[in-house]
């Protein structure tokens, strides 16, 4: 028998063992999981960040055309949002089989960075805020919709 044949025979033997173990574990009552379980803290932290972002949009809308609208007056919001999204990212990264949520959070982090870049260029107009609100709503809804689906009908 050639070395490659021996190798594949060994791999097949191992695969059968793993399949058997998986089947026994599954039949023993452990449900198969490809995605992490629902995480209440992630849910709460994302909801909390969504509230902060929406509060910022409402404030910015009210300040459109006024001198208060400048980036310098909103630095605290951006700092808080950065801390919040980093905390969510660290938690999402620590949970196994949580890759989709981690990608979600990184996309949101990038969007927040770009929102700050936009604000640094100039005050946000009402039309720009409407556009931003729509996109941020979609991002937050996507994250929360998936997190809630992880409850799997519980």
């Amino acid at each position, binding site marked *: 028998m050639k070395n490659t044949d021996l190798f594949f025979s060994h791999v097949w033997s191992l695969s059968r063992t793993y399949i058997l173990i998986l089947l026994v574990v*599954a*039949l*023993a*009552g452990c*449900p*198969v*999981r*490809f*995605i992490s379980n629902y995480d209440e803290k992630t849910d709460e932290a994302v909801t909390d960040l969504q509230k902060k972002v929406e509060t910022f949009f409402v404030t910015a809308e009210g300040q459109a055309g006024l001198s208060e609208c400048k980036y310098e007056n909103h630095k605290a919001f951006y700092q808080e949002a950065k801390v919040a999204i980093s905390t969510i990212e660290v938690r999402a990264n620590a949970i196994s089989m949580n890759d*989709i949520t981690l*990608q*979600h959070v990184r*996309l*949101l982090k*990038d*969007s927040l960075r*770009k*929102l700050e*870049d*936009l604000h640094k*260029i*100039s005050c946000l*107009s009402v*039309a*720009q805020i*409407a*556009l*931003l609100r*729509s*996109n*941020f709503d*979609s*991002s937050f809804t*996507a*994250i929360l*919709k*998936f997190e809630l*689906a*992880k409850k*799997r009908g519980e």
Partner: protein
Amino acid sequence: MSLDVNALAATMFEAFRGKLTQKWPEVKDYAEAESKKFAESLAMIETLKSTGQINEEQARLHFDIQKNATRAVLLTIEGLGILAVEQAINAAIGVLRDTVNQALGFALL
């Protein structure tokens, strides 16, 4: 040239559908609403740029945020598909468990 919101929404809706067939009936409404929103946002970026309300750099930043939101929706649809597969496997295992126990005449598994 102004963007055709309906055509854009239809294209995006088809992209979402291509991503997920198994869970489609359940996510159809969500995908449809998001497709429409994204198409409208794209059209709005174009309007803001063409009327001089934002410059090229601002348009690019808005577009990047829009892209991130679209990717987030696609990720959710993909994730819901994986959860559906997981659910199907567990249901099949449940049936197998019942069959084995029934054949044996007692609850072994």
